[in-house]
């Protein structure tokens, strides 16, 4: 299953055309045709189509999108407006596909957002873009202005009687704000501390109102599904992971970049699509979906990269931010950097995470400095095992899982450091 032929891609089909971000080019490629079709349907019908398509959240969690939409109240209660919130806080290391969508085909995102609003009785959508993506922000802002001028955003859109506005919002450098409840806190002008769930956003979301939160890629998948139908989306992927995925691939490969492929494409195929291994190296290990997904070894080169297969392999698809490491890589050093990332990004709200991420990083530093004993590895394993299920939000879970995957799957990487220090101790 190679990369889908460009003209058939559901999201990135015209990204290589100069000016692809402009409405002029977008309209040439059918932009807003799906919106026109959607406005002729009932909101509930749209949710049903999305449900039938099997589209799953592309931000990382993979929750079925149509199902999430179906949890919203059927009609807004008096004084309780509905919102759509697009999570464009893309900060998972190795992930840059939402950046690509927003910069190259922002009208796809806008169209999907409008359809999502219509389906969920929302008249305002927020797009929260990570702060560092300042040029991306400008491009999306310009696209919104174009769409407004053309009458796709605003009052009585296309004479349908449906009103909708889209507000852009910037993050300011905080990975935790990609977690949906921390994102809401941040948008509300507070520190990005996660909220307890339940209640979920569909019940108590932005400003306490019912909110649908979806990732950029998820929303950008919707127009194609509306135009071509749920069954057509299922021509790709698997029963449980239908459709296409924009994989971000980077690391020791020749052509790092984003590639829209059927879900279930293997790493071997992805490496091939991205120009092969750098310097003809051999793959030693990879993160399938950012560093929040456990490390996998080269024995998984042919594992389909879909939600269920990667879960069965002891990892996860996550954001699909694939980072490929060849045999020259020191996995302990990589895992130390990953641990340091989680330590840095821990919001501080819950003790097991802000303490756990701190301690795991300190122990990994001791290992790298060749001052660690076998006991230290056991302490590290204990800490990493405790994190899952005990921290307030998935950041802590992921931090523990990452470190555990090194200890359990690549013990020989650690042995190298220990053996050396063992050699240096002298018994007297």
């Amino acid at each position, binding site marked *: 299953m190679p990369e889908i032929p460009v003209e058939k891609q559901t999201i990135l089909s015209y990204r290589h055309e100069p000016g692809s971000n402009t409405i002029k080019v977008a309209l040439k490629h059918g932009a807003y045709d799906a919106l026109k079709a959607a406005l002729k349907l009932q909101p509930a019908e749209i949710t049903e189509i999305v449900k039938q398509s099997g589209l799953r959240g592309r931000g990382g969690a993979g929750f079925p999108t149509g199902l999430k939409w179906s949890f919203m109240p059927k009609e807004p209660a008096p004084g309780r407006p509905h919102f759509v919130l697009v999570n464009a806080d893309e900060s998972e290391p190795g992930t840059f596909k939402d950046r690509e969508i927003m910069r190259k085909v922002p009208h796809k995102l806008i169209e999907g957002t409008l359809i999502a609003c219509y389906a969920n009785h929302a008249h305002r959508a927020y797009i929260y873009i990570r702060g*560092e*993506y300042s040029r991306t922000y400008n491009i999306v802002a310009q696209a919104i202005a174009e769409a407004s001028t053309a009458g796709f955003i605003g009052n009585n859109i296309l004479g349908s009687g449906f009103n909708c506005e889209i507000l852009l919002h910037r993050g*300011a450098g905080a990975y935790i704000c990609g977690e949906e409840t921390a994102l809401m806190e941040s948008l509300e002008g507070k*520190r990005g501390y996660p909220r307890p769930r339940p209640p979920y956003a569909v019940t108590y979301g932005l400003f306490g109102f019912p909110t649908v939160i979806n990732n950029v890629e998820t929303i950008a998948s919707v127009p194609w599904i509306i135009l071509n139908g749920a069954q057509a989306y299922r021509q790709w992927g698997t029963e449980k992971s239908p459709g296409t995925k924009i994989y971000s691939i980077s*690391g020791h490969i020749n052509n*790092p970049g984003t590639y829209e492929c059927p879900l279930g494409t293997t790493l071997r195929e992805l490496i091939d699509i991205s120009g092969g291994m750098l310097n003809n190296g051999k793959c030693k290990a990879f993160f399938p979906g950012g560093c929040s997904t456990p490390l996998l070894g080269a024995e998984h080169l042919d594992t389909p990269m879909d939600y269920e297969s990667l879960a069965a392999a002891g990892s996860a698809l996550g954001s699909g931010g694939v980072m490929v*490491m060849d045999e020259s890589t020191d996995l302990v050093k990589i895992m130390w*950097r990953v641990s340091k*990332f989680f330590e840095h990004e821990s919001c501080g709200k819950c003790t097991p995470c802000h303490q756990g991420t701190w301690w795991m990083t300190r122990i990994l530093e001791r290992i790298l400095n060749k001052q660690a004993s076998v006991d230290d590895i056991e302490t590290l394993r204990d800490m990493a095992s405790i994190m899952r299920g005990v921290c307030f939000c998935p950041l802590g879970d992921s931090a523990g899982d990452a470190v555990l995957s090194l200890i359990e799957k690549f013990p020989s990487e650690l042995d190298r450091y220990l053996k050396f220090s063992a050699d240096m101790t002298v018994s007297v």
Partner: protein
Amino acid sequence: MLSESLKEQIEELITLHPSKRAGLLMALHAMRNEIGYLTIEDLTELSSIIGESPAEIQSTANFYEMFHLQRPVKIRISACTSVSCMLRGCDEIVEYLKSRLGIGFGETTPDGLFHLEEAECLGACDTAPAIVINDKYFGNLTVNGLELLLNDLLAGKINIEDMR
């Protein structure tokens, strides 16, 4: 003291949402764009416009990497050292920056011109190793290329104002 134009922008931003507080991050961005960094005085003034305590506003600004509560520098370099950049040689880039500027991460050159910091993943992994200078991304870096870039920046051949 916030300028009149900033105050106008802030007033507009805080009326967009069901709560005034929700305009805070965009207001802080507006201040950052105009002033470059945030003083306690400016944050206190902002807090009274929004109607929250100074402590609330300061502690919120403090949470975010991009909002700096220290003296301004002309050229802020953030070097990504995350996984994909590590795999593509960021160590060399970082070593070069440290030795050329004579400072480590989190430090400012004595003349106040450069500040160097370590960045988490910038989302530019396809162009690793990557850095940000003020707000502008630079990728596919080599030590030679970076040397030339810094030379041009210092010689005024590249406008610092374009680093947005």
